[in-house]
C-alpha cells in the first residue's frame, strides 16, 4: 500500500479538532420550565464539567471519519499483486487483451475478462502521462483503438466491449484465438509510430494458459517489449470446471436400423493451482433430443483426463433431422458455462454419397470395373442408403477444373477404381478434401502405376506401392498359383458389428500389388493374403480415412467380388470411410465461422436462441450466414430444402491449465509498479461513518 499524495497527510493535524471540540464543547443543557424554582439553589457558580471528554463514541466516529477523509485525499494505492510494472518514462504502448472464450472462466464471481478490464484500468492509471496508448483485442472483431494520448478513450472502449461485445456483460465471444495471433496486429499499431526512439511496449492482459499469455514471445519482431499481465494474480486460485469437448455420433445398425450411438468426450479441467489429490469427481451427463432429456449417465472424471460417455438412442421413423445435445446435468455453477453443452444434428437417413471413378469402363456390364461394386452397394440399400455415382476420370478432372476442391463438397467417399493416376491438381484437391474428412478408397488394377500413385498420393497412401506381381509366376515355380485370403482381422474398426467368418475365405487372387513396408505410416491392416501380404489396409489422414485394396474390385485380378462376403465388406468399408463425415451430420462449424448456404430465394435461418434471420442470396445463389456466434443448432430453409448445421465451440479454449509466465524484467529505474487505486473503498467507508455520525448525533439530540 502506497500513497500517491503523501504530502496531504499533513491534514492529520486536523484530527486534533474533534478532540478539542469534544473537550471544550459544552453540553447543551436540556431546558426544563419548572414551577418550584424557589427551592432550587445553585450548587456552585459554574457547574459545567470541562475537563472530561464529552460523548466519547461520537468523538471516536468523528475522528475516524476525519482520518479516512485525509487518507482518501492522500490517494492510497496498493501495488498490483501480480507484481506488474510499467515503463516509467513516457512511451508508446499497446494494450492487448485476450477476449477469447477461455476468458469466460469465472474467478471470484467475475469473469477473467472483467478482471482483465480492471487490470487494464489500473494499468491505464499507472502509465506515465505523455505516453501514447492503443488497444487491441485477441478477438479480431473487437474494436481497435489506434495510438493516442487519451487513456479515457481506451478505457471506455474496453468497458464498452466487455459490457456489450459478448453475449452477456463480462462474457467474451466464444471464439478461439490465441494471443499470439493478435500480436502482429499490435505490432502493426506500433509500427506506424512517429515516436522516434521511444520505448515501445505491448501490455498483454490475459489468462496464464497456453493459448493466452503462454503463447506470447518476450519481444515482437518490431522490437517492442511484450509485458505479460495475468488477468488474475498468480496467487489467486482459479476454479476447476468440466467441459464437453467433442460430440460424435454414428449409426448403430447392430442394435437397430435406426439406432445411433452418440458419444461425447468430457474433461474435467482441475482447479489451479492444481489440486494435490487426484480425486475423481462424478458428474452426470445428459443427452437431449430436441428439448427432451432421453438419457442420463454419470461419469467419473479424474482431473485432466478426457473421458468418453456413450449414449444409444433409437430415432423415430419420422425423424429427419434431430437436434441432439449432450450437456452436463447440473451445469448451473460451472465457472465456464459455454462448454457445458455441445450440439449436433442426428440424421438416420443420412445417405452416403459415394462417387466411383471408373478407370476401366466397359460396354459389357459384367466387365465394367464398378459393376460388382454397384451391385454390392445396391444390395445394402435396405439398411443404409448409399447414392453411388460413377464418373470417368476425365469427368473428374473437368469437375476439379471448374469447382476446385468444392467438386467433392457433397461426396462422402471417393472410390478410385483402377484409375490411372490423376493429375497433380486433381490429386491435390482430393488430398485437401480427404484431410477435411472425405473417405478415399483406392483399388488397384492394370492401369495403376505404382510410381505415379506414390508421387501424387504420397501423404495419403497407407503404404507406398512397389509393383504389381502375378502370384503364379513366382521364381522357381512352374505351376499356377493363387493367393487365398487369411481370416479378416475383426478388431479393425471397418468390421465393427460383424462376427464370425466374413465369407471371403475361398477367394483367390492371381495378381496383387506389393507394397513397401513403412512402419512410420501406421497402416491398419484389415485383410491380408495367406502369404501375409496386406490385401486391404486403411489409414487415417487428419479427419479423413483412406483404404487401399491391393487387388481389383472386379474379377480381373481376383475373384473377390464373387464371394458372399463381398457385400458386407463393401458396405462396411464404405461406411467406415465415410464415418467421420457422417458423425458431423454433414456440417459442423466452429463458432464465428461463416456458412454459405446455396439458395435461389431468400432463406430464413433459425438460430439456437429461437431468433430467425433472413438471408438474401447473391447473384451466384449463395447466401452467407456470418452470425454464427451462438453455439447450438441452426436450421436454414424449410421442407425438403432444409439445411441443418451445428455450431460448436473450440475445446482448446476450455483448457485452463496454467503455464508459467515469466514476468518481463525491465531495468529497475525504467519501471514503476502498477498501482491499484484504493481510495474508493476508503471513501465508501467514510460515507458509512458519516451515516453513523448522523445517527449518533440524532440520538444525542433526542435524549
Amino acid at each position, binding site marked *: 500500500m502506497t500513497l500517491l499524495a503523501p504530502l496531504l497527510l499533513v491534514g492529520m493535524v486536523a484530527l486534533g479538532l474533534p478532540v478539542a471540540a469534544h473537550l471544550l464543547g459544552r453540553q447543551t443543557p436540556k431546558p426544563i420550565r*419548572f*414551577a418550584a424554582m*424557589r427551592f432550587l439553589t445553585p450548587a456552585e457558580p459554574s*457547574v459545567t464539567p470541562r475537563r472530561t471528554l464529552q460523548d466519547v463514541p461520537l468523538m471516536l466516529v468523528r475522528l475516524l471519519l476525519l482520518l479516512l477523509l485525509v487518507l482518501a485525499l492522500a490517494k492510497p494505492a496498493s501495488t498490483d499483486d501480480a507484481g506488474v510494472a510499467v515503463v516509467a518514462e513516457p512511451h508508446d504502448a499497446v494494450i492487448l487483451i485476450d477476449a477469447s472464450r477461455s476468458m469466460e472462466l469465472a474467478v471470484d464471481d467475475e469473469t477473467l475478462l472483467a478482471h482483465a478490464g480492471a487490470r487494464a484500468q489500473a494499468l491505464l492509471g499507472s502509465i506515465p502521462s505523455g505516453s501514447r496508448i492503443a488497444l487491441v483485442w485477441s478477438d479480431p472483431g473487437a474494436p481497435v483503438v489506434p495510438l493516442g494520448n487519451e487513456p479515457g478513450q481506451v478505457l471506455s472502449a474496453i468497458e464498452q466491449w466487455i459490457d456489450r461485445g459478448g453475449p452477456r456483460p463480462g462474457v467474451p465471444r466464444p471464439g478461439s484465438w490465441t494471443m499470439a495471433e493478435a500480436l502482429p496486429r499490435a505490432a502493426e499499431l506500433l509500427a506506424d509510430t512517429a515516436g522516434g526512439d521511444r520505448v515501445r511496449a505491448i501490455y498483454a492482459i490475459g489468462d496464464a494458459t497456453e493459448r493466452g499469455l503462454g503463447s506470447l514471445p518476450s519481444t515482437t519482431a518490431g522490437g517492442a517489449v511484450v509485458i505479460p499481465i495475468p488477468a488474475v494474480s498468480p496467487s489467486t486460485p482459479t476454479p476447476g470446471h468440466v467441459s464437453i469437448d467433442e460430440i460424435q455420433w454414428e449409426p448403430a445398425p447392430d442394435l437397430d436400423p435406426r439406432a445411433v450411438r452418440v458419444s461425447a468426450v468430457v474433461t474435467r479441467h482441475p482447479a489451479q493451482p492444481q489440486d494435490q489429490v487426484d480425486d475423481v469427481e462424478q458428474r452426470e451427463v445428459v443427452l437431449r433430443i430436441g428439448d427432451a432429456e432421453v438419457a442420463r449417465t454419470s461419469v467419473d472424471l479424474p482431473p485432466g483426463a478426457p473421458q468418453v460417455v456413450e449414449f444409444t438412442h433409437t430415432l423415430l421413423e419420422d425423424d429427419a433431422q434431430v437436434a441432439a445435445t449432450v450437456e452436463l446435468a447440473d451445469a448451473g455453477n460451472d465457472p465456464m458455462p459455454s462448454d457445458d453443452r455441445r450440439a449436433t444434428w442426428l440424421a438416420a437417413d443420412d445417405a452416403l454419397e459415394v462417387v466411383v471413378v471408373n478407370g476401366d469402363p466397359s460396354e459389357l456390364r459384367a466387365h465394367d470395373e464398378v459393376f460388382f461394386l454397384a451391385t454390392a452397394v445396391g444390395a445394402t440399400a435396405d439398411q443404409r442408403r448409399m447414392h453411388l455415382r460413377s464418373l470417368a476420370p476425365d469427368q473428374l478432372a473437368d469437375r476439379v477444373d471448374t469447382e476446385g476442391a468444392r467438386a467433392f463438397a457433397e461426396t462422402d467417399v471417393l472410390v478410385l477404381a483402377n484409375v490411372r493416376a490423376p493429375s497433380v491438381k486433381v490429386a491435390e484437391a482430393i488430398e485437401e478434401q480427404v484431410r477435411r474428412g472425405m473417405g478415399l478408397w483406392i483399388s488397384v488394377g492394370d492401369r495403376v502405376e505404382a510410381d505415379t500413385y506414390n508421387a501424387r498420393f504420397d501423404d495419403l497412401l497407407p503404404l507406398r506401392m512397389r509393383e504389381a506381381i502375378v502370384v503364379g509366376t513366382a521364381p522357381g515355380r512352374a505351376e499356377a498359383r493363387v493367393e487365398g485370403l487369411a481370416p479378416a482381422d475383426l478388431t479393425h474398426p471397418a468390421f465393427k458389428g460383424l462376427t464370425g467368418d466374413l465369407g471371403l475365405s475361398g477367394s483367390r487372387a492371381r495378381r496383387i500389388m506389393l507394397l513397401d513396408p513403412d512402419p512410420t505410416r501406421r497402416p491398419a491392416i484389415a485383410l491380408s493374403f495367406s502369404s501375409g501380404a496386406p490385401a486391404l489396409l486403411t489409414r487415417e489422414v487428419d479427419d479423413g480415412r483412406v483404404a487401399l485394396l491391393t487387388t481389383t474390385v472386379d474379377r480381373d485380378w481376383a475373384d473377390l467380388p464373387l464371394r458372399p462376403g463381398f457385400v458386407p465388406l463393401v458396405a462396411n468399408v464404405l461406411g467406415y470411410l465415410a464415418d467421420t463425415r457422417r458423425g458431423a451430420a454433414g456440417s459442423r462449424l466452429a463458432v464465428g465461422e461463416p456458412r454459405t448456404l446455396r439458395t435461389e430465394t431468400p432463406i430464413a435461418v433459425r438460430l439456437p436462441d429461437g431468433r430467425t434471420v433472413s438471408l438474401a442470396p447473391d447473384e451466384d445463389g449463395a447466401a452467407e450466414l456470418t452470425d454464427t456466434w451462438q453455439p447450438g443448432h441452426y436450421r436454414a430453409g424449410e421442407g425438403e430444402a432444409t439445411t441443418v448445421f451445428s455450431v460448436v465451440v473450440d475445446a482448446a479454449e476450455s483448457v485452463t491449465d496454467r503455464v508459467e509466465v515469466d514476468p518481463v524484467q525491465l531495468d529497475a529505474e525504467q519501471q514503476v509498479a502498477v498501482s491499484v487505486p484504493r481510495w474508493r473503498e476508503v471513501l465508501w467507508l467514510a460515507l458509512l461513518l458519516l451515516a453513523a455520525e448522523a445517527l449518533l448525533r440524532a440520538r444525542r439530540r433526542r435524549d
Partner: protein
Amino acid sequence: MAESIHALGRLVPPQLREQMRGQALVLSRRALGRRHGRHASARAGVGLDFRDHRPYVAGDDPRRLDWRAMARRDRPILRQTDAEDELSITVLLDANGGMAYGEGAANKQAHAMALGAGLLWLAQRQGDPIGVALGHDGAVDVSLARPSGSRDRLGVLAHKLSELTPAGTCPWVDLLDALAPRLARRSLVVVISDLIEVGPDAARTPETEAALWRGLSGLSARGHEVVVVQVLHPDEIEFPWTDDRMLRFEDLRKIHDTLESPGQRLRDAYLQKFGAHLDAITSACEHAGLRLLRTRTDEPAAAAFVRLLGLLAGTAAADNVEARP
C-alpha cells in the same frame, strides 16, 4: 349556554363526571344561608327534624305549638325544627404561571380546574350559590366572586375558567383583601393552588406567606369554612432528575433567574427545602383550623374529588398524599 356547557365538559374529565353522579356536597358544619337549601342550617326554621322546645312568645305561629309538651308543662310550648339552608361556595383559583407545569392530564392547572369546576357543578346542581375568585398574572379578578344561584352562573364561570391561561403570580394578600367583603355569611371557601409561590416578590416571600395564612385564618374566624386544596406535580415532589446531565431550569412564573446545573447536584437541597415547605403548610393549616387536601396530578381527578367531598363532609381525614419521595 351550550358553549358554556361545552366549556364545562372540557374542564371536568369524563371519569369525574361519572363519579359525581349520585354524589352530594355535604358540609359537616351547619350552613347559614339566606334561602332555603339542602344544608342543615345553624338556626331553627321550617323543617322536619326536631330541634328543641321553647316557650311561646307573642307573634309565634300558633300552628307550631307542641300540644303534648303543653299538656306536660301546662304552658304554651313551641316545637322548633332544624331549617335547611343554602350554602354559598366560593372557589379561589390560583392561576399562577407555575400551574402550567405538567403534560396532559398531569397538568396542574387541568387538575385544579377539574376539582374546582366539579365542585361548582355539584353545588349548582343542588341549588347552592357559587362564585369564583381568580389570582392571575399579578392581578386579582373578583368580578364573579360574589356567590350567586342564578341559573346561568355555572356556564359563565365555566367559560371564564376555560379561557384562563396560567401566567405570572397570584397576589394572595390582595386576593383575600378583595374577596373578604364579597363573601356571604358562613360560606365555604375552597382555595385551590400549588402554594409554592404566594406573591410577586420572591424576596418578601416569608412575609407574604404569613399574611396569607393570617388572611385565611381570618376568614375561618369569621365563620367561613376554608378548605385548602394543594395541587402538586410528581416532579415537584420527587425531583426525578438524578443524573449529571446539564439542565436549565426556567421559572414558569418569571420571578426567579434561570438556573443551569446537573439535576444531581440540586436534588438533595431541593428535596429538603420542599419537604420543609410542605411541613410548614401542614402546620399552618392546623394552626389556623383550615382543612388541607393535598393532591398529586398523577392521582386521578375523580379519586381526588371523592377525597375532597369526604373532607368537606367530615367523614374522612384528608389522607393527604405523602409529600416525600
